[in-house]
């Protein structure tokens, strides 16, 4: 067996074994787990206001400020979704690609990404009127061959903190943890 053939078969085997286990499963992904509830805490803040409309307007402006294009919105239900396409090149992946090329292995580096955002608002609280704002960021990364290399939720707390900081500055209101 030639060396090239061996690498190919190893790659194929890897593909077959990975195909058996998908990143999303029917059994696990429709159940509420403690991790998912933790995500909710990270992605949600409450604002002391009853003016949901104003929050939505401010969010729409904030999304524009951060370069997102609005894809879908429904003010009655309190949702705005947006997306943007950005560069995703990473120097370390290029280094790996060049090293790989010497050994005849192709590891295509990431090229571009679609970043998605979804903001939802909803009135909460019985006596104290507040509006909860939830934001979710996700990205789809394409490699040089324009194939999807990664789809992931962005869960770095810093991203969410800075989003809410910007939002409360724009609203002149304090954001409370839930």
């Amino acid at each position, binding site marked *: 067996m030639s060396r090239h053939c061996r690498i190919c078969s190893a790659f194929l085997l890897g593909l077959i074994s*990975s*195909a*058996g*286990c*998908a*990143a*999303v*499963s*029917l*059994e696990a*992904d*429709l*159940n*509420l787990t403690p991790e*998912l*509830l933790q*995500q*909710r805490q990270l*992605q949600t803040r409450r604002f002391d206001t009853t003016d949901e409309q104003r929050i939505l307007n401010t969010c729409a402006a904030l999304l524009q400020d951060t370069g997102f294009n609005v894809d*879908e919105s*429904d003010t*009655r*239900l*309190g*949702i705005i*979704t947006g997306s943007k396409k950005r560069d995703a090149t990473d120097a370390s992946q290029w280094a790996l690609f060049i090293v790989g090329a010497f050994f005849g292995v192709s590891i295509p580096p990431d090229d571009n990404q679609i970043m*998605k955002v*979804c903001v*939802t608002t*909803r009135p909460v609280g019985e006596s104290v009127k507040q509006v909860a704002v*939830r934001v*979710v960021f*996700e990205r*789809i990364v394409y490699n040089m061959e324009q194939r*999807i*290399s*990664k*789809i*992931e*939720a962005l869960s770095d707390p810093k991203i969410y903190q800075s989003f809410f900081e910007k939002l409360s500055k724009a609203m002149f209101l304090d954001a409370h943890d839930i």
Partner: protein
Amino acid sequence: MISERLKKNLLVLISLLVLTGCATTHDRLLDMDTSQVQLRSFQSRAFDTTDKEKTMRAIIATLQDLGFMLDRADYTLGVVAASKSRADVLRAPGSLRVTVTVRPRGEKQLMVRANAEYQLQPVTEPKPYQNFFNSLEKAMFLEAHQVD
């Protein structure tokens, strides 16, 4: 040299393949392979409320809690569509898409129907829908009634 018999067999085989191609497109387009009545009962639940807005907001919150990204929402139609896709180096890409509709059922109830698609297949087992409605019940603070 191909014998006459083999040629005939090949022709039959090819025409069979062509024919099945047509049939599967039809089947997939209208997905008529499972019992519609049974599927509808898996996918539907009735809630004792007439507040459409609150129900739709609860559906949106539940889908977000489950890690879905909202694709569409329309109050007038009563439709919420969301999807969850993940892919990484170690695992194959997975995608789950859900559409949930809300419509009045009688005078005092709302009917919530969800249908899902996983990878390239429609979801026809009851369990995933049960899990979804369990989560929705918690967000609605209401019991979901099975509908016949």
